[in-house]
């Protein structure tokens, strides 16, 4: 395919799209877990039965963002989003909204044209734009909304150095965690001597709580490929890899299909768009090792070895895959590239703060009403994300902390709700941007337990190559387990702090260097909780099992016997219709009685 052929194909697709006026976009990626495919089948069946094929089209799209409403669909041209739709609702939706132009309040959750307020109002959808408006399995859909046009423009009219110049000027920083300037990384690799260079797309999204890379690969895979073509052209690579997490089967399926389709169109392979530039992409699945998100470990894994990091220098830009100059970028970073070429680096840099440019996608989850994927300009406050976009904490609970940046990040307390979020400000409060996981926690979350959770995670994922990480995190985990288990001792906090400093300063790779962050931030902002666990043997959040006692409130107990029946250790006694009681010596604090009691007669303290 040549550039002019690509342009005329796009025009042809745009015209054919205009023939059908009504469309329903069903998220079949994230929402698949909530029955989206059954919904697609239901709509298609209805269309066939009622001869609506020329009037209404079903698009199997990517993620719409408001995942708490899954399965979520968007109706065009009204722009209404309907949530929690079931196959039995199909006829009602088509008859009332599609054919009758009537809004069904029961499903309605938000509209794409809602203006300033609500879920979409505070967002700036630049990178996620194509997620939810195309069928990611169809390259024509992607080309119809302009995919590959920026790669074509770069190949035709820009030199590799001009591309790098634009990316430098854009101020784009790596979205995978460390936040290193992307343009600079490209420049190092471009300048490295050698003809054989490699480009790797790091799609090993391992941070628990982050799922934006998954959504991009699933919902807009051609955007990633286009970003890779531009990056490869800039650094001079003719071969690329996408290292994708095997736990994401839909992402693997969609990106594999997208690469194949791009090859068939001549958008990958030899002499791309008649430019003389050659580039091929190979997909590699991860095999379940968190540490492989670290670039040198990822390279080792690609080389067929145990995924262990090595010390740097030499940096991959000089000696990476097979000892050749290699550039590694994260999925979201690469997804930004076509936009930078389209707008120019200078215009791109107008969004964001002084040192952090563009938008950032956050995966909003935990104790917040609207969970899902949100894209916001850098510099927005945590309050806007949690309370305006997320619509606050459910069940009338209070905000306690936001865990940002996964196991390398930290817990940001309520006092920083108005902090403008960017790479620098988060670092100042002890957290990191990381890949953009944002877990909201209400007052029932215990911060010591949170620190223990992350250290347990890191301990399990530590590759074992260097001692500080392998042994240090183990000791930290053990101390935290002891504190949560009611066996904390005086001096434990000091020991934790000492270990944290050592592990941070002497570990080989970022996994170990950042491992103490969850402990350090919780110690900094919630030290009193640690002290309550150690000295008072109490968990203020009512979370740590070994520190809880259960008792039955006489005034509420009806003697129904449900708790007695469900107690796994027979710690509850009492006759039918009489007040029951719990024997504290037998009770294992499992919480089952609390869960099953319908009369709020079980108290935890």
């Amino acid at each position, binding site marked *: 395919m040549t550039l002019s052929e690509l342009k005329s194909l796009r025009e042809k697709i745009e015209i054919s799209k205009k023939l059908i006026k009504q469309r329903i976009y069903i998220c079949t990626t994230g929402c698949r877990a909530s029955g989206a495919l059954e919904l697609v089948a239901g709509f298609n069946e209805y269309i066939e039965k009622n001869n609506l094929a020329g009037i209404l089209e079903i698009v199997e799209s990517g993620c719409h963002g408001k995942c708490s409403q899954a399965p979520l669909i968007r109706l065009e041209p009204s722009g209404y989003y309907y949530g929690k739709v079931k196959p039995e609702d199909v006829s009602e939706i088509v008859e009332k909204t599609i054919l009758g132009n009537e809004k069904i309040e029961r499903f309605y959750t938000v509209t794409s044209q809602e203006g300033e307020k609500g879920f979409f109002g505070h967002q700036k959808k630049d990178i996620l734009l194509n997620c939810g408006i195309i069928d990611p399995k169809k390259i024509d859909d992607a080309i119809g909304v302009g995919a590959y046009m920026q790669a074509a423009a770069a190949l035709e009219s820009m030199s590799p150095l001009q591309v790098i110049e634009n990316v430098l000027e854009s101020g784009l920083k790596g979205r995978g965690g460390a936040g290193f300037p992307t343009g600079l990384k490209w420049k190092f690799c471009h300048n490295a001597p050698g003809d054989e260079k490699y480009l790797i797309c790091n799609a090993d999204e*391992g941070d628990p709580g982050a799922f934006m890379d998954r959504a991009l690969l699933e919902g807009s895979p051609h955007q990633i490929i286009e970003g890779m073509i531009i990056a490869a052209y800039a650094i001079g690579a003719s071969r690329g890899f996408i290292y994708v997490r095997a736990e994401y089967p839909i992402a693997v399926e969609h990106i594999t299909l997208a690469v194949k389709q791009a090859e068939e169109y001549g958008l990958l392979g030899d002499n791309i768009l008649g430019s003389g530039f050659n580039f091929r992409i190979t997909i590699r699945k991860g*095999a379940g090792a968190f540490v492989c998100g670290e670039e040198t470990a990822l390279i080792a*894994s690609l080389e067929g070895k145990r995924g262990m990091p090595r010390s740097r220098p030499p940096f991959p830009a000089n000696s990476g895959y097979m000892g050749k100059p290699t550039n590694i970028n994260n999925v979201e970073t690469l997804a930004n590239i076509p936009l930078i070429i389209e707008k120019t680096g200078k215009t791109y840099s107008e969004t964001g703060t002084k040192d952090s440019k563009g938008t950032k996608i956050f995966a909003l989850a935990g104790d917040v009403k609207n*969970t899902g994927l949100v894209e916001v300009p850098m510099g927005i406050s945590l309050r806007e994300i949690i309370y305006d976009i997320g619509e606050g904490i459910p069940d009338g609970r209070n905000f306690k902390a936001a*865990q940002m940046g*996964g196991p390398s990040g930290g817990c940001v307390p309520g006092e920083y709700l108005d902090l403008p979020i960017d790479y620098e400000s988060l670092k100042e409060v002890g957290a990191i941007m990381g890949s953009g996981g944002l877990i909201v926690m209400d007052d029932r979350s215990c911060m010591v337990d949170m620190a223990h959770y992350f250290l347990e995670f890191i301990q399990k994922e530590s590759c074992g190559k260097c001692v500080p990480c392998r042994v240090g995190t183990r000791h930290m985990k053990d101390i935290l387990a002891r504190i949560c288990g009611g066996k904390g001792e005086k001096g434990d906090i000091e020991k934790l702090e000492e270990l944290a400093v050592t592990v941070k300063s002497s570990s080989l790779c970022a996994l170990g260097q950042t491992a103490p962050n969850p402990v350090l931030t919780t110690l900094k902002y919630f030290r009193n909780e640690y002290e309550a666990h150690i000295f008072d043997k109490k968990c203020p959040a009512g979370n740590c099992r070994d520190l809880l006692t259960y008792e039955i409130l006489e005034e509420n107990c009806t003697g129904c016997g449900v708790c007695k029946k469900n107690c796994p250790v027979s710690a509850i006694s009492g006759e039918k219709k009489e007040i029951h009681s719990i024997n504290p010596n037998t009770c294992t604090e499992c*919480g089952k009685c609390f869960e099953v009691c319908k009369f709020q007669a079980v108290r935890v303290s």
Partner: protein
Amino acid sequence: MITTIDLEPVNKILAQIELSEKLTNGKIKPAYLIPLLQDIQDEYGYLPRKVLEHVSTISGIPLSRIFGVITFYEQFYMEPQGKHTIKCCRGTACHVKNGQKISDTISEILGIAEGETTEDGLFTFETVACLGTCFLAPVVMIDDQYFGNLTNSEITKIINKYSPKGDMP
């Protein structure tokens, strides 16, 4: 118990490796080891030792190195797996939403610890770092099906549906 392992499937996989993944002498590039092991596991359900020995002979990759790789990555198994794999998500969002209790309940129902397979060969129980479906927390995946917003009683019901014969509900 001696089980005979059919080498036919692995030979077929080896024969289909693309030329670009081979060295000039026709041997398999060591860099291709992980995708190769993934293909073999997809076929056999696990990585039988005899198959690995065969791969080592054919490819020239030392058996020690193959074992090194297998034991490093969590998704490689050297023992047969259960008919159904239950993956309990232990991501941050799931943790905040009481995922630990779900994990404990599964262990209790099946009578096995994480990483083990039930005696009848019906279930393998695993925990995973994050399934990337945090909006459904707490989440469990059984084979390729997701179950979200779980409570203890729901997970009990779901697992019961898969037993006793292991047929889908």
